[in-house]
C-alpha cells in the first residue's frame, strides 16, 4: 500500500517503521540497509519533534502544537518528509512538498 507513494512526483524512497523504530518495509532507490537507517532516523526524529512540540505547548500555553502532525527537513536538493510511521525522501526539484504531505497523510491513515 505504501508503495503508491512512489507514484507521487519527486518521491524517491518510502519507508514504514514501527513504534519501537524497527523497519517494516521500504521501496525505492535506496539499499535496504540505508532504508533501515532512514526508518531509525525518522523514528528518533519523530520523538524529538514530539519533545519540542511539548515544550512549545508548555512555554506558549497555546493549543495546536501537539500532537505534531508530521515534519519536514528540507535540504538543498533533497527533503525528508514524515507523517505517522511513514517517511519518504523527496527530490526538491521534481516534487511538491504540499502534494507529498497530503498523500503521506492519506496513506498513513489507511
Amino acid at each position, binding site marked *: 500500500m505504501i508503495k503508491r507513494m512512489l507514484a507521487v512526483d519527486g518521491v524517491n524512497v518510502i519507508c514504514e517503521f514501527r513504534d519501537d523504530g524497527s523497519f517494516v518495509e521500504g521501496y525505492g532507490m535506496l539499499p535496504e540497509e540505508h532504508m533501515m537507517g532512514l526508518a*531509525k*532516523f525518522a523514528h*528518533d*526524529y519523530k520523538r*524529538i519533534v514530539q*519533545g519540542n512540540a*511539548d*515544550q512549545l505547548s508548555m512555554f506558549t500555553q497555546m493549543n495546536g502544537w501537539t500532537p505534531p502532525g508530521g515534519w519536514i527537513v528540507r535540504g538543498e536538493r533533497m527533503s525528508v518528509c514524515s507523517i505517522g510511521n511513514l517517511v519518504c525522501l523527496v527530490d526538491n526539484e521534481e516534487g511538491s512538498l504540499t502534494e507529498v504531505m497530503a498523500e503521506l497523510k492519506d496513506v498513513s491513515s489507511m
Partner: protein
Amino acid sequence: MDIISELASMPGVIAAGEYSYRGDRFTYQGQLDPEQARMASIMCRATTMSVHMQSEILESFCEDCGLTPSRGWMVSGPGMTVCVYTNVFAFLDNRQASKNAVMAFMQAKLADKTDDLV
C-alpha cells in the same frame, strides 16, 4: 539515602529529580514546585532524546569513540547549570555548586544504569 536525595543535598544543588523516558512519570526534591519539576522533566527528556540520536549518528563515523554511547549532558547559563546523567537531572547554582563534584557523583552512582530509552 537514595541518589536523588543525596544529589539534592550537595552544595549548590537547588533541585534534583528523575524522569521516565516514556515521559509519564517524574520525581524530584528541592526548590522547585511540582509544575516546575514537570516542566524540567519534559525539557531534560527532550534534550536526552536528541543527544541520544545525535550520538548514534556520531557513532557511525567514529567507531570505538569514547563520546558514544551518550550517558549525559550539561548546559550552563551565567548563573545556573543543568546536569543530566541517564534519566536523572540536577539544577545547580553556579556560585555554590561544583560541576566536577556533581558530575563525578552522578557518573559513579549511575554507572550501571542502562541507556535504553524505555
